[in-house]
């Protein structure tokens, strides 16, 4: 089955005053139809940049595309014309962002924003609906997200809603179009802990219903374990490990992943987690070779020289580490 989305060897840089931030250094991803895939990494590792590249909303300049391809159903998004990209956004791709307060326009009502999405995305598909039908569509979308009293919400401004309700609006915005692939960038990180679970469950439900593929970006291992079938681990602009979620977390192979697992406090009470020593690299002058090697306790001489590619160590299981060159430890 050909993957829905394929990111191949993506290199993205940001030109700043002091030089070029080499943020993404060869990112590789694939998502199939109906698959739920996770992308895990700490803050600053380039997850959002990856998402923005896929959606082609990177601010260019100062961002620069330094290489790679993003294939959607076989066609390179990066090479598409603006009109084609817009069409793609209206019918295939959609996204949810991290901060619902920032992601909603503060001076327009929820209803206005939703209605315009319907207007513009359906208009593109050649459908014309009456005003009543459009409003009904919006109300229905809000209802599906579990929003109480959706008609009233339509005339509210984002600032009048609670964090959870705002995120529901964002979900409604994202799913009101007939999209096939959802890119969810840390959708619950900014919400109250008490609502996080609720929202995630609802999102999961909706995605399942519509048979959509999802790229769930998060730094929470718990979220990934619950909601995804496959997962990618990202570090400093590179994918360092890939595999089926359950298996990867049961048997983490990359030193970074192992460190991540160890950092999560366990209920069995092994004391306060140690965390991984060191910090994420300076993107202006990233380490040669493997970007993780300064923090890695298993460093081999080759790690300082060459960038490790993703070595296959099993079915659908890959690790970017020289420890696994040749397919096994």
């Amino acid at each position, binding site marked *: 089955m050909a993957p829905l989305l394929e990111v191949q060897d993506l290199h993205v840089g940001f030109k700043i005053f002091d030089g070029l931030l080499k943020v993404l250094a060869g990112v590789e991803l694939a998502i199939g139809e109906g698959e739920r895939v996770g992308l895990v990494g700490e803050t600053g590792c380039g997850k959002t940049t990856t998402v923005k590249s896929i959606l082609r909303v990177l601010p260019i300049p100062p961002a620069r595309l330094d290489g790679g391809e993003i294939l959607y159903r076989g066609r390179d998004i990066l090479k598409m014309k603006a009109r084609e990209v817009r069409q793609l*956004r209206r019918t295939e791709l*959609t996204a949810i962002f991290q901060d619902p307060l920032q992601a909603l326009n503060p001076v327009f009502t929820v209803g206005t924003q939703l209605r315009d999405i319907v207007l*513009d*995305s359906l208009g593109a598909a050649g459908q014309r609906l009456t005003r009543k039908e459009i409003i009904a569509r919006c109300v229905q979308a809000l209802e599906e997200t579990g929003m109480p009293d959706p008609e009233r919400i339509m005339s509210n401004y984002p600032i009048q809603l609670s964090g959870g309700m705002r995120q529901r609006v964002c979900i409604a915005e994202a799913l009101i179009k007939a999209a096939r692939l959802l890119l969810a960038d840390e959708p619950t990180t900014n919400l109250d802990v008490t609502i996080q679970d609720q929202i995630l469950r609802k999102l999961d439900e909706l995605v399942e219903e519509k048979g959509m593929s999802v790229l769930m970006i998060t730094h929470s291992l718990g979220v990934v374990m619950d909601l995804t079938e496959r997962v990618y681990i990202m570090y400093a602009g590179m994918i360092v490990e890939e595999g089926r979620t359950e298996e990867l977390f049961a048997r983490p192979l990359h030193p970074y992943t192992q460190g991540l697992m160890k950092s999560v406090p366990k209920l069995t009470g092994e004391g306060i987690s140690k965390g991984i020593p060191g910090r994420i690299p300076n993107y202006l002058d990233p380490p040669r070779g493997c970007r993780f090697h300064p923090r890695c306790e298993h460093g081999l001489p080759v790690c300082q020289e060459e960038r490790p590619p993703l070595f296959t160590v099993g079915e659908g299981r890959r690790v970017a580490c020289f420890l696994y060159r040749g397919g096994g430890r």
Partner: protein
Amino acid sequence: MIKYIGVRLAQSIFVLFGLSLLIFFIARVVPGDPARVALGNLATEEQVQKLRAEMHLDKPFAVQYYYWLKSMLRGDLGKSLYTQRPVTTDLKQYIPATLELILFATLISLVFGQVTGVLAGYFRNSWFDNFSRLASYLGVATPSFVVAILLLFIFSQLLKLTPSVGRLPLMVKPPPTVTGFMVLDSLLAGRPDLALLALKHLILPAFSLAVIHIAQEGRITRSSLIENVQKDYIIAHEVHGIRPTKLVFKYLLKPSIIPTVTVMGLDFAFLMSNAFLVELVFFWPGFARYAVNAMLSKDLNAIVAVVLVIGVTFALVNLVVDIIITFLDPSIRIQRRGG
């Protein structure tokens, strides 16, 4: 909301009373003899004395103010020593001309300023942006009357494109006065040709007034736009497929003009004061020119009336601008609706 407006109005009235007191105080404190100045050196001492009694100039300050206040509340602002007519008549004649000028200038500055600001901000660092930034530096640094003189020089005298004096050509009979707005009155009288002439006369003075505001407000819109273009919600709109024109002129514009509108109230004050000078350059028979003449001839009643009119207008404009902002910015609206 109504409560808010009510409070603001009350505050304004209070301030305006204070203003009248201030101006009145300054007017009466001045050395010299207003009655003498009014009648000139040839008048006899008796006549001057009579006028002095009429104007209550021999009474203490508080009494003078009381008399003035009483008549003011009845609608009588005294007689202009310069035109020898009731000041209210003068005002009625001259205010529409200035109002027309100011409104037209505001329109020009809104259209040119905001469109330029939006385009410059959206196409940041393009040639258009750099050019308008440079132009705006000059625009802000050039006083309105200097702009007026330069425009007059270039367009009226060198290029002979536009007229240079007054609201209509000298030989042309103006349309019957309905609103006092030359363009409107001409259209109402069924004379579009007159309206066109009136417009031609309006263009240069209005533009001279507008330039500094185009530069100032355009700049604010531009930087506001630049700031908002990077906001998450704009990216979200784009991702959700909103059409580009709608994105810019609806979803980007509205949040971006809020800082500009905030500034417009204050800018209007400068617009009004610059009108004083521009009307002189173009011999525009307006309220501001009347005011200048009143000031030069120490026509006290007129001066006080002028200051009050300007004060009232300013207060009203500020209130209107505030109300507009309340409608534009929901967070302020909620704050004011009742807390």
